[in-house]
């Protein structure tokens, strides 16, 4: 690798984007984000339609934001104030699309070599060789995309983008539709490659599973805005927004009213709508009387068949099982406590407790399993 290239590569991607697009028949789409992507993988997470792909298109130069600034390290790619706007060809930003967009009439090798026309023949084939090996697809060089399996096509798309030694890599859900093993193997190869290159990688996904597999750093966005950023644990385990909570797999999303705040204890009490149920949840920005939502993972709720005493958990709620169904390796029970809770438990636990439909149960919830969510 040339040393100059890697020095430039070792820099952060920053993007400040503002854009408004009118859409017939629906409210205008407004994008207003400011993100910083250090070297390594950063996940851009959010429900579909939240503007993730538009952010990538702007960074790649395929879409022009109304105003803002995009820089890869010291290289200004776009600046509406000074009128800088490099073409996609000149940005050195690699982009792997969701559909991969491999050229169907070219072999794997021709696809990978496509971006290297400027190099002398020998260097070109050396680089193609190296990257095909790094992504373990050197045996497929002579095949066309239609003759190659899904996971291998994804590897070739990655190789084609990275062989140009880009300053930034953008990935738009490139691993959708692969099983977990295959995904993990590809991500490992990507990490191994980037350990040497050290470029910022912005990885768009709406899959919670992928976040967990990749997670170093994530940015959550919705409706064209950044909602929160941090480690996946910080962002997803304490979602402050309703759509994010849904996307992050919180099965219980209950609305209620704040009863009182107990600042000394760091908690507040929330009465769930249309029921007598009260929950103690961590203190949030709310005042008594405010309508709020509480997000709880089905797997964070404990079940007891007799009323439990002497617990540290503050929330014990009585209810009745109204439905049970097997979902893969777990059992999903619906418990009516005035409001309906979804609870996940293992088949073994369900057998031991002799749970049945109509049976009386008590739900036990730790205060910190209940997450306060803004509307």
């Amino acid at each position: 690798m040339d040393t100059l290239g890697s020095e430039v590569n070792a820099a952060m991607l920053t993007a400040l984007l503002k854009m408004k697009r009118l859409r017939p028949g629906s409210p205008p789409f407004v994008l207003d984000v400011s993100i910083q992507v250090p070297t390594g993988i950063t996940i851009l997470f959010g429900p579909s339609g939240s503007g993730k792909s538009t952010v990538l298109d702007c960074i790649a130069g395929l879409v022009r934001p109304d105003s803002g600034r995009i820089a890869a390290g010291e290289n200004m790619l776009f600046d509406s104030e000074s009128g800088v706007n490099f073409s996609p060809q000149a940005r050195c930003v690699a982009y792997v699309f969701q559909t991969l967009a491999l050229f169907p009439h070219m072999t794997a090798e021709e696809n990978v070599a496509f971006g290297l026309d400027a190099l002398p023949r020998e260097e070109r084939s050396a680089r193609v060789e190296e990257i095909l090996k790094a992504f373990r697809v050197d045996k497929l060089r002579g095949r066309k995309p239609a003759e190659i399996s899904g996971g291998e096509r994804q590897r070739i798309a990655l190789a084609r983008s990275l062989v140009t030694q880009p300053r930034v890599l953008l990935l738009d859900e490139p691993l959708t539709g692969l099983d977990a093993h295959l995904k993990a193997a590809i991500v490992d190869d990507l990490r191994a490659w980037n350990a040497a290159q050290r470029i910022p990688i912005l990885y768009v996904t709406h899959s919670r599973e992928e976040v967990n597999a990749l997670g170093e750093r994530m940015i959550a966005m919705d409706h064209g805005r950044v909602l929160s950023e941090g480690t996946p644990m910080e962002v997803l385990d304490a979602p402050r927004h309703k759509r994010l909570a849904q996307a992050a797999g919180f099965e219980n999303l209950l609305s209620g009213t704040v009863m009182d705040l107990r600042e000394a204890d760091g908690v507040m009490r929330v009465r769930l709508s249309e029921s007598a149920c009260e929950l103690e949840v961590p203190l949030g920005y709310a005042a008594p009387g405010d309508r709020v939502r509480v997000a709880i993972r089905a797997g964070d709720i404990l079940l007891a068949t007799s009323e439990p005493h002497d617990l540290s958990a503050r929330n014990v709620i009585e209810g009745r099982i109204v439905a049970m169904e097997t979902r893969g390796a777990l059992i999903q029970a619906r418990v009516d406590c005035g409001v309906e809770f979804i609870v996940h438990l293992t088949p073994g636990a369900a057998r031991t407790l002799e749970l049945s439909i109509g049976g009386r149960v008590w739900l036990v919830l730790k205060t910190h399993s209940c997450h306060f969510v803004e509307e």
Partner: protein
Amino acid sequence: MDALLLSLRLALCVSAILLAGGLPLAYWLAYSSWRGKFLLEAVVALPLVLPPTVLGFYALLAMGPRGPLGKLWQSLFGHGLAFTFEGLVLASVLYSLPFAVQPLIASFESVDRKLLDASAVLGAGRFKTFWRVILPLSIPGVVTAIVLSFAHTIGEFGVVLMVGGNLAGVTRTVSIDIYDHVQSLEYGEANRMALVLLGISFSVLSVVYAVNRQVGRQISRRLWTPWAAK
């Protein structure tokens, strides 16, 4: 036989010119975002609806000794344009334009836009993207364009009659020749020429469609087969 050779020569010239000029024109019509594009689209499609005599009439006026094209030609080459083979080629190019350009536009537009984006972010400029991505994926459209402009030129009558007149070996194409024979009640001669023309046209079209279908099928197989099928 002169007439037949002339028709074939004319059709070859016209197809070649239309391919060379049609590619950039179709590219522009397929991808330009200029607002007034519809005007040019209408102009290109005009020969589809105009009677050949109308087109031929204006072409004749333009090419005549006092027409702008005629004058230009006179000053460049020292002779007029009307009633010459060159004049015939020019008028036929205009007349067959939509038959070349429209299949090209259709096939350019059917190329997945993501492939063009991918090409751009890989550093390819417009020319490289066209040459390496769009054109190879548009082969069926290119073949169709060549066949249609060839066949349409072989079969034209009205424009040739208006612009070319009826000069043996210069502008008397096979369709005019047949018409002449019928006028002079030489049905046997007319029939012989007509049969030859029919035979040639049918064989050319069959061969080209067979090839085109095969190429098209290969390409569509590469594009659309589910990935796991292999």
